[in-house]
């Protein structure tokens, strides 16, 4: 399951702290929507809610940073970037290997049929 594409509404049911935690755990770029209406796109790699002024830290889309944004300046965070941890590279690899194995078995079987005199007509 991935949060890619999620645009959370911060309200009574979903707190900003929860949204920040999800964004921190997300392995893709997000768009931080600030309370002044401006937006910052980047990768959130850290957050600290245990300090008097809770903050997130991110590298922007160009890789510049780190920059800090205070929780109190954040309206919401949109999960706009590709979730790089949502891939199924391992599954795809196993499936490909199984297909290759099946093809090898089938080819070996066909070869055996051709060389078996009992299977030839005449």
């Amino acid at each position, binding site marked *: 399951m991935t949060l890619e594409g999620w645009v959370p509404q911060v309200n009574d049911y979903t707190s900003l702290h929860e949204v920040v935690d999800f964004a*921190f755990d997300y*392995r*893709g*770029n997000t768009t931080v929507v600030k309370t002044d209406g401006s937006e910052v796109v*980047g*990768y959130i*790699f*850290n*957050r*600290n809610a245990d300090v008097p002024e809770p903050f997130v*830290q991110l*590298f*922007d*889309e*160009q*890789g510049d940073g*780190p920059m800090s944004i205070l929780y109190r300046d954040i309206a919401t965070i949109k999960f706009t*970037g*590709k979730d*790089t*941890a949502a*891939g*199924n*590279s*391992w*599954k795809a*690899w*196993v499936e490909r*290997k199984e297909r290759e194995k099946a093809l090898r078995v089938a080819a070996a079987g066909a070869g055996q049929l051709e060389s078996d005199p009992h299977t030839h007509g005449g």
Partner: protein
Amino acid sequence: MSVPVSQMYTVATYVLKQKLRGRKRYPLVLMLEPLFRCNLACAGCGKIQYPAQILKKHLTVEACLKAVEECGAPIVSIPGGEPLMYPDIDKLVTELVKRRKYIYLCTNAILLKEKLDLFTPSKYLTFSVHMDGLREEHDEAVCRDGVFDEAVDGIKAALQRGFRVTTNTTLFDGASPLRMREFFDDMMNLGVEGMMLSPGYSYSKAPDQEHFLRQARTNQLFSEMLSSPKRRWKFNQSPLFLRFLMGKKDFECTPWGNPTFNMFGWQRPCYLLQEGYAASFRELMDDTKWENYGKKSGNEKCQDCMVHCGYEATAVDHTFNSLKGFAETVAVTLSGKL
């Protein structure tokens, strides 16, 4: 054990100094990740899933050296990402050797042959080559055919040039003890100095979530694999840690034993869990709520973890904590029986 005497002496004196100074928590190995970029995408790895701008970045040599100084650990392990893709790896290694740090450069060895000219053999530098088993198992673990053979070529070339070479192996569920014993024979035949083993940790970001080992299965696998070990097998790690993996010892995690530094800062609390970053090593050590980690804490993320970065430091500490621990380590080392 295959660790050279000079390295054992350095570690032993370091640990004893920490104890004499009354330091309750001290680092043993710095895990220095200069980059996250890698030329493989292994099924069990949760280290490289980042957006492109993060994968393109890397630490400066100066930032790496500052972290090394801050931390003070006698051993620096350089994982990643693939450290041989770090453009300044030669400069970093040279500087670490100057500082007499024992370096484990953890590589998949795809680039090893091509990059060997960048390095000079030294007792301080070891190439720790990722090998997750025999050809079939390794290529499956790294999701690419042919990598095992490339790694073997790299190992041979490095050994021929006089470098220290070890292997590091992560074991997942489904590993065959018999095949692993065959693998140990093959690695020793290649001439590596020693082997390092660890069960895999279930990174939540790793693509393959089905094959991580649970504790009982870990004990069973390592017991079957390491019972009656051959004398020619050399392990480049604490024998007490191996006994722990076999279920013969009960240890608690030392999450601060292998602190991790990367472009995000000092990772809390350990190499495996990623719960935030501290700006300095001091902040990591002083402000992390260590009581929330390890089996005793009840933290569910720690319950099945038996990984070297948490428990090898415990095993080493146990060796120097009492005469009994020291005697046990010596006995296992001399007898070769785990």
